């Protein structure tokens, strides 16, 4: 398991490449990845910037708990989770969830489950800055299931 927070933009695919150099890929035939980036729109409004608040300490613990629970449910998986915090610009990376497994069903289902739990449980809060300069807190995530 690896869980990381980044205060600066990161390249999700470079993170996956770096992690794969340490993995026995001849046994992990399946890799499912989700990468989420900041869109420049939300609920029909132009969004110019985002601030991602988090709860230092709890956020890391909670991500580790979510990944550990997935590793209990799908014992064969290996996971990499990364999330941005702080000021984010459109098109920049927000979240990466990568799951390796011997078989594709476990990789796919665990990747989806970790992402959904992260979005509904982990302590992150988005504040958007709109085109007219006003700011607003995002009230809820869109449903994923």
């Amino acid at each position, binding site marked *: 398991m690896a869980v990381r927070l980044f205060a600066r933009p990161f390249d999700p695919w470079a993170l996956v490449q770096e992690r794969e150099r340490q993995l026995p890929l001849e046994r992990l035939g399946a890799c499912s990845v989700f990468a989420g980036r900041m869109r420049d729109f939300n609920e029909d409004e132009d969004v110019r910037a985002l601030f991602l608040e988090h*709860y230092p300490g709890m956020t890391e613990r909670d991500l580790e708990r979510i990944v550990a629970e997935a590793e209990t449910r799908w014992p064969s998986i290996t996971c990499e989770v990364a999330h941005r915090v702080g000021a984010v610009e459109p098109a920049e990376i927000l979240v990466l969830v990568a799951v390796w497994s011997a078989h594709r069903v476990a990789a796919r289902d665990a990747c989806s489950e970790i992402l959904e739990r992260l979005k509904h449980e*982990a302590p992150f*809060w988005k504040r958007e800055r709109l085109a007219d300069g006003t700011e607003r807190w995002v009230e809820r995530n869109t449903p994923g299931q």
Partner: protein
Amino acid sequence: MCRGRQVTITVLYFARLREDVGRERDEVASTGDVQTVGDVWRGLHGEPPARLMAAVNQAHARLDTPVADGDEVAFFPPVTGG
């Protein structure tokens, strides 16, 4: 059962809730009637708002989760990461 005890609790607020409360933390010192997360909120702010989320010592909690001396209790709105 814990009435009479001296209880000191650190309270943290996040995101929109921090702005609504107007500060990012409180220190609560009580000699008895603060036994749950809900008691902590009510002692400071009255009735809890809908969709209030909470944590005790950085683990998710509910309004009926017990609190103890030295705990860190956090209150926050629904999360929106990912």
